[in-house]
């Protein structure tokens, strides 16, 4: 059995010794080749969890193994094999898309970089904007450029925070298509934090529901919808966020 892409045990983060935990002893595994959704309202602990998986935040307790590498002890062997995209992080605005991809390709040690950039430009329809300053792009174009950066090193694990936030439905649909296609072709695992429930239903084989720093439920979208007796993931999300699962279950 292959090592899971992510294996987390009793992961905890407290930002203050006397404060509540932002992430409270969560455990989960993400097998390779799967797309898993990380859902929860604001402050549920999603970004904190992703930051610990990326190694840019040190946990207070617990273990984080990514691609078989202990991210607390020595994260660097894993970092070259994963990538990340978030609306909270920008690509340098004054550099063109091509220049940004060239810089990050260099940081990840990507071989035959010009060919890889051309390949991504083709895949994500970046050709017309490749030599434009990243800061001058529309939200949708910036998201595609960020996604190209996230794919530059052909990651075995992709961590995505709100990958289609602020995109129009057409662009969002295309991005979802690219992600599904990448996961299928490459066998990479994707951990997706999203507030877009249609996106989660379409992409994710499994969903982790977070609230107050804990994983309060998990399962395939269809299984969760059935378990909560709801019509879609949007309603399941609301039940979890508002703590109305009991009422939901009682509703005929």
């Amino acid at each position, binding site marked *: 059995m292959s090592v899971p892409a992510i294996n987390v045990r009793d992961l905890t*983060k407290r*930002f203050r010794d006397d404060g509540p935990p932002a992430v409270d002893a969560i455990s989960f595994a993400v097998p390779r080749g799967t797309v898993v959704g990380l859902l929860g309202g604001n402050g549920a602990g999603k*970004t*904190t969890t992703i*930051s610990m998986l*990326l*190694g*840019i*935040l*040190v946990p207070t307790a617990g273990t984080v193994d990514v691609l078989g590498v202990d991210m607390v002890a020595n994260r*660097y062997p894993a*970092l*070259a094999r*994963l*990538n*990340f995209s*978030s609306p*909270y*992080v*920008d*690509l*340098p*605005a*004054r*550099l*063109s898309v091509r*220049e940004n991809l*060239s*810089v*990050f*390709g*260099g*940081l*990840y*040690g990507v071989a035959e970089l010009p060919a890889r950039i051309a390949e991504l430009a083709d895949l994500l329809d970046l050709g017309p904007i490749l030599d434009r*300053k990243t800061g001058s792009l529309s939200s949708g174009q910036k998201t595609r450029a960020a996604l190209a*950066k996230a794919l530059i090193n052909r990651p075995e694990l992709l961590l995505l925070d709100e990958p289609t936030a602020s995109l129009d439905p057409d662009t969002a649909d295309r991005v979802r298509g690219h992600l599904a296609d990448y996961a299928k072709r490459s066998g990479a695992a994707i951990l997706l934090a999203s507030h877009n429930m249609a996106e989660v239903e379409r992409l994710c084989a499994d969903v982790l529901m977070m609230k107050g720093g804990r994983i309060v439920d998990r399962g395939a979208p269809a299984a969760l919808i059935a378990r909560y007796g709801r019509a879609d993931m949007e309603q399941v999300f609301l039940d979890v966020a508002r703590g109305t699962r009991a009422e939901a279950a009682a509703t005929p």
Partner: protein
Amino acid sequence: MTALGAALGRVGAMSKRHLYLFRSSWTRVFDLVYWPVLQMTIWGFVTVFLNQQSSWFAQAAGVLIGAVLLWDVLVRSQFGLTLSLLEEMWSRNLANLFVSPLRPWEFAASLMLLAVARSMIGVLPAALLAIPLFAYSVFDLGLPLIAFWTMLVMLGWSIGLMIGALLFRFGLAAESYAWASIFVIQPISGVWYPVSVLPAWLQPLAWCLPSTYVFEGMRAVVIDKTFRWDLLAGAFVLNLVYMAFAFAAFLYAFALARRRGQLLQSSE
């Protein structure tokens, strides 16, 4: 690829990132050149005036222009390092960098390399302009110029890395330190006057600064036509101590930022 080769590749990628930035923004290049040229011009005319008034200055022609150019090497070196870090914070790019295989020491090394480049871009035009304007060439200092330049760049690195540590710790709220800190040492570094001018109680503090050794050494070359190896050795030893301390502070602040979750959102 060897580990060293990969590390050099990442340092090169960071350098390329700032080269692209310069290429896309001539105002940034102009800003680098503007202040050194302005300072040199002002002190050049002050020198012309003083030469007419004082036989001492007439004999020590260029000591003030040499001082202002070397001071700018220090300032531009520190600003260059700090500015490269600030560019990453302003563009909210730190998290992208530190989820890549880029190590903190490689990041620091790239900042140091960029500091050298920025100090050269800033000071060389002023140094070249001083030749036709004031018939003064700082290059007449000869080989000692390389030693002075190196010592001042090293001190600029140390101060820049310490400010970098503050930026990691306090975010952009510490930005003002980036521009103000270096000037604290100017009055006691003997830039414009010998250390002997300072009050006796302040002189030991002045001799704790590598810059003091450089400016005293520069005056020894210009006025006494002597290169003081003892001053160079003093500057070098102090620089090694400060660099070790600054590097440790930078890495410690980075580790602290990882514990506090400040790398993802490095704002105020």
